[in-house]
């Protein structure tokens, strides 16, 4: 199997996708968080600009939640600085929370109260008296406000979490893995996020659901083992990753026929030809048409595949180093 070429993805704290003249919503500089001898996050630097939706990707235990909870002063930092709207994350924690909505990755609700009462209680803690947005969000997400909190399914509990994070109309919304809704509701949730962005809100959301990040995010930061690996515009990343063409021929073929400029990877797998194409798609299709085709599929390179590929390469490199 041929090895992929290097797409130029930075292994350092990649700032390439970041515009320097934009206002900063979150600025994290050299954040380190240790849990005893265990590294939670190490020397992480990241900026989230005002008005963008930033995805924060990484596998379980990579340090996404640790980073977010440091931002909200739920846990102490070991080193580094975090400022949110120019305020110090820990010294000005209460002031920051006045401007921030937060959906935790795992959370519990006060039991045996109606969802409506619970949300009103949270509104009052936020000093917000209007229930207009709460009611609108609940309607859009089809959340029954008259159910008791201890009677909710996992999905409905997540809806409560989403509503409470958005209902106070804060400037910054931080969400820790907001996936788990049914597909229709998930799409509605993405529409809500896009609307928030239109209204000038900043969203910083962690996820290991790459399709989710592709759907709504402007930029993505990838974290692994507590260290930031790459920060990139989603569009640029997708362009870099190209498209994948899978073709099944009736007859044998020679892979050299498909070597064109802009084709980064050529692979043969059980009689199937698998190409990664960045440009020159026209020439590739013409070359393919010289053969009798049984089956063909052209798709956008999934960020998930990129993600998996990237980690696979890292693992190989590490084993090589060892």
């Amino acid at each position, binding site marked *: 199997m041929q090895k992929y070429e290097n797409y130029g993805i930075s292994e350092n704290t990649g700032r390439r996708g970041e515009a320097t003249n934009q206002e900063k919503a979150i600025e994290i500089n050299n954040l380190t968080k240790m849990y005893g001898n265990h590294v939670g996050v190490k020397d992480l630097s990241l900026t989230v600009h005002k008005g963008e939706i930033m995805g924060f990707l990484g596998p379980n235990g990579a340090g996404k*939640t640790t980073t977010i909870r440091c931002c909200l002063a*739920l846990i102490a930092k070991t080193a580094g600085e975090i400022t949110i709207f120019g305020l110090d994350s820990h010294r000005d924690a209460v002031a920051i929370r006045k401007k921030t909505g937060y959906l935790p990755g795992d959370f519990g609700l006060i039991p045996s109260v109606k969802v409506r009462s619970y949300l009103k209680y949270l509104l009052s803690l936020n000093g917000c008296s209007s229930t207009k947005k709460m009611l609108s969000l609940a309607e859009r997400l089809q959340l029954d406000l008259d159910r008791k909190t201890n009677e909710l399914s996992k999905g409905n509990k997540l809806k409560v979490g989403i509503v409470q994070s958005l209902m106070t109309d804060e400037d910054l919304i931080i969400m820790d893995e907001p996936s788990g809704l049914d597909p229709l509701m998930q799409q509605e949730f993405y529409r809500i996020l896009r609307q928030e962005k239109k209204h000038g809100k900043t969203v910083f959301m962690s996820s290991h659901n790459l399709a989710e990040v592709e759907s709504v995010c402007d930029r993505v930061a990838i974290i692994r083992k507590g260290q930031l690996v790459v920060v990139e515009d989603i569009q640029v990343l997708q362009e870099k990753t190209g498209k994948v063409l899978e073709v099944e021929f009736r007859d044998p073929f020679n892979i050299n026929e498909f070597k064109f400029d802009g084709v980064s990877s050529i692979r043969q797998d059980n009689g199937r030809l698998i190409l990664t194409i960045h440009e020159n798609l026209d020439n590739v299709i013409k070359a393919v048409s010289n053969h009798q085709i049984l089956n063909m599929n052209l798709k956008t390179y999934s960020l998930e595949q990129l993600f998996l590929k990237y980690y696979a390469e890292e693992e190989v490199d590490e084993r090589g180093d060892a």
Partner: protein
Amino acid sequence: MFGRIAFMELRTGWKGLLIFGLLVLIVSAGIPMIFPTYRDSLIEEMEGASKVHLELPDEQGGMITLSWEPLETATSYMVLEDNRSSMVTPNIKYMGNETSITFEKDFEEKRYYAVMAVLDETSDPVLIGITATEKGEDPFQELLKNPAYAGFTGGRNISMLEVKGFVALEYYGWAWMLTGLFIAYLSVSLIASDFENKRMDVMFSAPISRRRYLLEKFTAMSVIALFIVLVQIAGLTSGLASINALNEFSANAVLLSLIGSLPFLMVIAAVGIATAIFSQKVRTGMGITFAFVFAEFFLYTFGGFSKSLEWMKTISIFKYWDYFSVIIDDLFKTGDFLILTLLAIVLIIAAIRVFQKKDIPT
């Protein structure tokens, strides 16, 4: 606005609080109601006692006069003497036709006299009545001389035959276990369950400082403690009123003696909150807080054993809730009240300091 978290705690927990309040009310009203039965059980009502009359001398060695109502059908009378009311092994003190006898009191212990009427040779004697040289005895009198009890009562002469003594020993002496342990349980679970059920992240997504969070929880606990104390006052007052014993207490004695327990309960609540912050687990926090309450009780108990151990009392919170002083001496110790209040405040400030530096676990 301050108070919303406290209000939510009261709102979600009102059913449990109501049930506990009802229990406290029953206990507080019920214990005084037991007193008359208890007292009467010590003052023995012996059969036919109204028909037999005993006159006792003022001094040892004086003469006792025993008289009884005559029975028309009696041919003679017989007086039996024993030191047990069951009269299992009596001595025959008198046989004859008189209805009154006099004899020397040459003994110290309590003695019982049964007067029998002999009807004829074929019938068994008939009991006219039984009487005794003492009307009743307080089984706790000897016990209260024990240093452990004397330490509690402050060496005061307390009689269980009086409603004050009964209530002080049987109600106040045990009420702390009911109310104190409830407050310990509630204060720990109020905080630690927020950790265990992962409610902290949502709570602190709102612009709430950790100091405010703990102060609100402490406020909720203080309101709950006040509610319990008020229920105790209402229960005890109505219980005493139902046996017409309220006038045996000086005005406000019940009120002040129980208000004195308010800072005592607040200290327990503060310890519960502090241990919940420290342990972040309901079971561990509860274990530590319960151990604290019992350790304080034992320190106070051991402190009464000897002069050299008296220092133990000073570090026990039980020393600063001196209900005997209010009930028996009519003295409310404001200094003790303030010491406990100050201790509760110091403990809460310490808990806030610790919480401000601690990570909230996921």
